[in-house]
């Protein structure tokens, strides 16, 4: 029997959404200060107004929905699902007020891409965008990557059992440390450490490649924020091609690979357990997966004689492949070039790489390596079982931070989510075909959206039909939440309608 959520349940959801909005509104202070420093008066007004609207809404929700009732699992999932939508709606405000987007839908698309660390952009004149607006676009990638929910939790809410339910709803399904507050603060600490070091390295490289010091620092910061969180936004329309720098490309490759490490792994290695780098199932599979993808990409590029030599082919091929596999979306090729010159085999390799993605509990998108590993091990176990007598007991182990035994529940969960991803990839492709795009291109774009990569073959641009924008937006949102929280939201909605 379905129990209909009561007013108190709606209040819990409303209260936590309000908390998230207060955090988001406060975060608008950063681009506001940026606008002040660079004397960009219109952006200053954009962030003052948007910040005030967001904070007002957040405070209003907290006031009207204040309740002492404890947060439950379904609430957590619902809040996680709605947070992304609500945060994107509000984060789009300053972008819309800037006048740099064709419509509010375009600004919303940009905001969702930023928060979900996808990376498609519909901005009309990126090369003339204000510093404050670029600060916001890239900061949103940091905020989204860290998980809006986690940040709001650690700053505004006391620790308790309720906190974990929100965190798990986010799509990061493992606890690093017992106390949710400590987990959130730990994620922020590691990320801050990387932020300082990463920005310094990138800024130095950019300065040596000819950018003036202030711009080198800003671009270094933005490329770090978008790179480490495997987002893929850049401050210029040419993406990484703008800089014409192999040093930068190399540094970014290092950064985005570190960005797909599970946060558990960062914790383990940075606390002294370096052996984890060799034993971890996800890193091992990722290594092999990249090599396999590289084999296919280079084979295709050599056959088609796309590049004039080994170095050029390595530089372009490895950058695009790793950018795709880590679901970052940085590119050193024009979309039309990628699609016309690389050929179907190389593009299939990229699509597979995008679908697989990175580690769980990281900012990467895609099906996730651990799920692939678990399904692979389960297959191996089933094959072995066929060869053994019926009453033989077979236990398969895998190492992920600690040793664990494979069980049916884990495998079922991995397999179901994988199937959901594949289904959404296909549905998105069909939607693209309905709008008149060729199937292969539509499939590429659909996979890129659902896996939150952001590499485009040319379909996603400001002239994209509104209906398809909404479809891709939903795919990006679903992919970010790895579906679980969306089912929570649907279950909540269903029980509102049909429950007693």
């Amino acid at each position: 029997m379905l129990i209909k959520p009561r007013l108190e349940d709606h209040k819990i959801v409303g209260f936590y959404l309000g908390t998230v909005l207060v955090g988001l509104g406060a975060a608008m202070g950063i681009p506001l200060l940026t606008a002040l420093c660079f004397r960009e008066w219109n952006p200053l007004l954009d962030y003052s107004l948007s910040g005030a609207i967001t904070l007002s809404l957040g405070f209003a929700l907290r006031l009207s929905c204040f309740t002492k009732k404890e947060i439950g699992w379904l609430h957590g999932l619902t809040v996680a699902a709605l947070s992304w939508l609500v945060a994107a709606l509000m984060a789009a405000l300053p972008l819309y007020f800037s006048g740099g987007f064709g419509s509010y839908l375009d600004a919303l698309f940009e905001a969702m891409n930023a928060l979900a660390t996808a990376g498609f952009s519909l901005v009309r004149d990126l090369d003339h965008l204000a510093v404050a607006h670029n600060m916001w676009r890239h900061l949103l990638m940091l905020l989204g990557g860290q998980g809006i929910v986690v940040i709001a939790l650690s700053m505004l809410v006391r620790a308790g059992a309720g906190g974990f339910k929100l965190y798990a709803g986010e799509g990061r399904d493992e606890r690093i440390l017992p106390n949710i507050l400590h987990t959130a603060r730990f994620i922020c600490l590691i990320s801050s450490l990387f932020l300082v070091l990463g920005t310094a390295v990138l800024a130095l490289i950019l300065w040596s490649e000819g950018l003036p010091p202030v711009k080198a620092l800003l671009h270094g910061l933005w490329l770090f924020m978008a790179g480490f969180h495997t987002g893929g936004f850049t401050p210029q329309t040419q993406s990484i091609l703008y800089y014409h720098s192999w040093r930068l490309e190399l540094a970014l490759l290092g950064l985005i690979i570190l960005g797909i490490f599970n946060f558990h792994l960062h914790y383990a290695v940075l606390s002294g357990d370096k052996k984890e780098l060799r034993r971890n199932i996800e890193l091992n599979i990722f290594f092999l997966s990249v090599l396999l993808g590289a084999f296919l990409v280079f084979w295709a590029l050599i056959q088609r004689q796309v590049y004039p030599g080994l170095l050029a082919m390595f530089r372009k091929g490895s950058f695009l492949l790793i950018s795709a596999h880590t679901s970052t979306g940085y590119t050193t090729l024009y979309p039309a070039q990628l699609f016309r010159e690389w050929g179907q085999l190389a593009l299939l390799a990229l699509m597979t790489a995008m679908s697989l993605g990175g580690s769980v509990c990281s900012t990467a998108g895609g099906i996730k390596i651990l799920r692939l590993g678990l399904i692979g091990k389960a297959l191996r176990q089933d094959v072995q079982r066929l060869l053994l007598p019926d009453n033989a007991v077979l236990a398969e182990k895998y190492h992920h931070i600690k040793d664990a035994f494979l069980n049916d529940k884990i495998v079922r969960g991995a397999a179901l989510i994988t199937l959901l991803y594949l289904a959404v990839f296909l549905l998105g492709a069909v939607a693209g075909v309905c709008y008149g795009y060729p199937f292969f291109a539509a499939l590429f774009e659909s996979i890129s959206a659902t896996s939150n990569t952001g590499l485009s073959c040319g379909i996603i641009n400001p002239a994209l039909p509104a209906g398809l924008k909404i479809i891709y937006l939903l795919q990006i949102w679903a992919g970010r939440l790895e579906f679980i929280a969306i089912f929570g939201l649907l279950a909540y909605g269903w029980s509102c309608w049909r429950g007693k």
Partner: protein
Amino acid sequence: MRYLSVLFFLLGALAAAEPIGSAELIVQAAKYDGRRVVYQGEVIGDILPRGDKVWLNVHDGQNALGIFTTRSAAAQSKTAGSYRQRGDIVRVSGVLHRACAAHGGDLDIHAEKIELIAAGFPLARPAAKWKIVLALLFAALTFSLGRLNSRLK
């Protein structure tokens, strides 16, 4: 007869001088690879030095292309586009490379000549008055709601 051939030559020269759009250059890169092309657009961002040569990025409204050229040729352009500035409009004549061997496979133009077509100018960005009014109203609302919020237990 001689008059006709001179006329055709002039027409041909004029046609050759028409700039080609970036979209065409990218999509038909294989066709233009290694050939002399004319490209026109706004200089954006930064001029990036590389020894005695420089990189310019020139945007023609559809895409930005990387232009590799000598410092003296690049000196034609003094202003690059940014938030406050419309950059110089330049006409670039040079050889297009679909996948430049010298530059890691990048699509670029090695420019032999850069002509300044129109100088850049500062962009006026006047503050919108309605934003000021609304911002003040919402700021007041935020402040009062915030005070009430701080009393929540």
